[in-house]
């Protein structure tokens, strides 16, 4: 094949048009993959919105679940999810950040540290139902907390801890070493350096990780079913030792009922859950963009 240029000498066969066509083909395949994913997602969301939107009225949020669809609501599930997420954050955040600080700033690099690191990474991949079984044995029965929102939150805290520790470590590692040195060279102690520099500069990343971990916790169902969270609660949640239910369990319950109206209630519940999750993720993104420090 003769090229445009005079020095094409026949010792190469570039087949340029064929190579370019392969490139375009791959571009199209990638576009198709993206489109397919988006279409499936949109159809799902659209279907749910069409099913559930007319049940999204004020009573839906203020009523307890009921045998009658029109008297059913998310009140107890919302309370449960709110309580659980707060207690989980309260327990998991300090432990997670503390562990991340220890591993990044204090732990020496030896086999024990590496063993702990590998296992934390592994824990992040353990199926959530295993955490449910652990919670059932340890908190519900062992500590005799019963099927309370506290036992549920402790289980959930265990579940999100690996995520929190891993994201916390990444945020801490992203703080340039030169700033630690700058602080130490001024006569700051190690703790002053961590407290005044490392933690504040890592905080946007840590918060983003925490919010993402919380959005994971708010959508989890399996471990809470395992520890025996109820599906049908007609009283307000008043303290950490009360019985509880959460949004995904309430949805799961409605889906399993035969009446068509309950299916629509489930769809409405899913809309609420999705809205909560999306706002949490949006908050994480806003925080990351607003507080991020560009070195």
């Amino acid at each position: 094949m003769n090229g445009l240029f005079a020095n094409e000498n026949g010792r190469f066969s570039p087949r340029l048009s064929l190579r370019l066509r392969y490139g375009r083909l791959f571009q199209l395949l990638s576009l198709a993959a993206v489109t397919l994913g988006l279409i499936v997602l949109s159809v799902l969301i659209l279907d749910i919105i069409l099913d559930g939107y007319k049940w999204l009225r004020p009573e839906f949020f203020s009523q307890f679940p009921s045998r009658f669809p029109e008297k059913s609501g998310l009140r107890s599930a919302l309370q449960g999810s709110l309580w659980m997420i707060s207690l989980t954050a309260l327990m998991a955040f300090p432990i997670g950040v503390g562990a991340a600080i220890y591993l990044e700033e204090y732990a020496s690099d030896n086999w024990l540290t590496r063993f702990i690191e590998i296992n934390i990474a592994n824990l992040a991949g353990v199926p959530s139902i295993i955490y449910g079984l652990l919670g059932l044995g340890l908190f519900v029965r062992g500590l005799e907390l019963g099927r309370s929102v506290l036992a549920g939150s402790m289980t959930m805290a265990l579940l999100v801890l690996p995520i929190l520790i891993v994201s916390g470590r990444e945020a801490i590692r992203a703080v340039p070493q030169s700033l630690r040195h700058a602080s130490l060279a001024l006569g700051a102690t190690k703790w002053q350096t961590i407290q005044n520099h490392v933690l504040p500069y890592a905080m946007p990343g840590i918060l983003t990780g925490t919010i993402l971990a919380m959005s994971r916790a708010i959508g989890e169902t399996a471990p809470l079913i395992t520890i025996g969270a109820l599906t049908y609660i007609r009283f307000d949640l008043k303290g950490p030792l009360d019985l509880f239910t959460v949004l995904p369990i309430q949805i799961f319950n409605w889906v399993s009922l035969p009446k068509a109206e309950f299916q629509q209630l489930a769809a409405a519940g899913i809309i609420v859950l999705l809205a909560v999750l999306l706002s949490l993720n949006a908050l994480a993104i806003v925080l990351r963009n607003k507080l991020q420090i560009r070195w």
Partner: protein
Amino acid sequence: MLQNHEIALSVNNLNVYYGGFHALEDISLEIPARQITAIIGPSGCGKSTFLRCFNRMNDLVPSARVQGQVLFYGQNIYDPKINPVEVRRHIGMVFQKPNPFPKSIYENVAYGARINGYKGDMDELVERSLRAAALWDEVKDNLKKSALALSGGQQQRLCIARAIAVEPQVILMDEPASALDPIATLKIEELMQELKKDYTIVIVTHNMQQAARASDYTAMMMLSKEGSRAGTVIEYDRTDAIFTRPKDKRTEDYVTGRFG
């Protein structure tokens, strides 16, 4: 050669190891007070490692081991009863790349004083330090502005102001101008001449002209012998002597640009 000077730092038989690696071999020299001492030498001969011995920054490397003495006005800073945190307030450091804290200009300067329990007027200290670092006129109306908004040269002078604010006797500079353009470099060099009235300055530099222009004394470092990776000081003298009549053939080759 140093008979007319007070001695700020005195290094005796200093050896540094990183694990099994011998990094610095048997260095002994004296650093005169309120003078500028340059450390020059080819890459990888341990200039920065040597500089970091003076404020115990090598302690941050877990495998590092320092043998020998560094006397700071007679007190061995490697004495077991001396905490490195205390050493670093008296012997400040300016790093190769400007590393201001991502805080306001004011906070950058005030930080060291604050953590060390400064009891005086903080506003006055910040102004005095910024003036001493020849930065005050450029930033006096914007002290609340983020330090990251400054230019590289301004950032480096801010780092010098930050180091001065804790009132050290010695300022260590690790190639402070290597990331800066020639004009910013010149400003730092002029600043050093001002600072040496009050501070002892030890500067590591790759830039031979800088050493010749800006320093009073020069220590020439090199790997101790063929095949070894341990650095040592092969010649130490007045800067004009090092650059005009070096005694060691290797120094002569290096400063005349024949190698390195």
